[in-house]
């Protein structure tokens, strides 16, 4: 039968998680809610940036392992993305500081072999959010190329959302701590493909 050789990660995808692998169960639909509160002051469109980021990552997986999609409500989401200055949508108390970069933070917590639900702060159903992303809007506001900076920032945090729990040492990679590119490199793609098929660790869903 046709074969494809095993692939190694280009950099350590667990460096910021203490050696622990985390990923989504293969084939699940990952619902992502983007809170647009505060974006007008920055003159950016967070939802469009997230859509572009997902499209940038989409060609990197080979076997339909991930099916991310944007949803309108946090109540239907596995992931929420919002500006750090916006009123928080989920409760992060009890979680570690998360995977932090120059202008963003991705927060998720393990509970055994699964991820803990980050309960919605709105009254009612606590929801099913597993990952929360906070973006520092001040890092892009006022810049002449704010959209490009935002795209890089959002795509970088999406890399953490999808399973890369580390940073690349190369500035040509999207997962460099201070990303200067808005699309994953071949190294980023190889690292994500490696993570997607690792046993152990914990599952986000």
């Amino acid at each position: 039968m046709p074969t494809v050789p095993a692939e190694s990660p280009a950099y350590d995808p667990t460096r910021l998680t203490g050696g622990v692998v985390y990923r989504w169960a293969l084939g699940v639909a990952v619902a992502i809610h983007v809170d647009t509160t505060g974006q007008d002051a920055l003159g950016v469109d967070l939802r469009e940036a997230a859509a572009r980021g997902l499209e940038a990552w989409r060609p990197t997986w080979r076997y339909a392992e991930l099916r991310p999609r944007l949803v309108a409500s946090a109540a239907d989401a596995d992931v929420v993305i919002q500006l750090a200055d916006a009123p928080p949508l989920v409760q992060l108390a009890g979680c570690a500081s998360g995977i932090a970069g120059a202008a963003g933070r991705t927060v998720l917590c393990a509970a055994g072999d699964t991820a803990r639900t980050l309960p919605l702060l709105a009254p009612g159903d606590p929801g099913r959010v597993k990952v929360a992303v906070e973006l520092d809007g001040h890092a892009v506001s006022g810049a002449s190329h704010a959209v490009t900076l935002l795209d890089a920032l959002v795509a970088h945090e999406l890399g953490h959302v999808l399973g890369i729990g580390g940073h690349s040492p190369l500035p040509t990679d999207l997962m460099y701590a201070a990303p200067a590119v808005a699309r994953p490199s071949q190294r980023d793609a190889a690292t994500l493909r490696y993570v997607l098929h690792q046993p152990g660790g914990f599952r986000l869903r």
Partner: protein
Amino acid sequence: MALATLALAAHSADLRGQDAAPAVTGWAIGVAVSTPLLADGNGTRVRSGVAPMLAARMELPWPHTGRLRPVAVARGAVGALQLGDRGERWSGGTLWQGDLLVGAAWEGAPLFLIGALGGSMLHASRRVTPLERTRVAPAAEAALRVRIGSQPWVAELTVQGLRLSAPGGSPGGVARFMAGVGRAF
């Protein structure tokens, strides 16, 4: 993999070595199984599985001599892709497959032996290696068809081989086995 194979079938109305006869259509229903489409060194296998099959075959007999005659085969199929990795299973979406082959049939009523060469076009609803979205692969097949009783019912067994490759990988063969019963018109 759930395969529903549709092929238009045509048989000569006179199957005893007459000159060119009109095409005859027929259908068959049965099951199909395939060997894996790909093995990834990181653990993923792309495969189809045992599935119900619906087939309609069309063969176009040309002027022939004796019991050997040229035939053309066109077949369509639709089914599902199954993916697996160390106990995890997930769907790869839908796979459409269209075959076009030419070959020769040997008639030894009630048996018919058919060998054919051609190509198969595979289209997946999701981007899954080695298919990506659409892939054309060389194909070869051999079929045994047996007329059942005095009515135009037939039993069919077909073995098809494909050659697929993936970017950055090594090419290999995929075998599909189809068995069914049907009727010729």
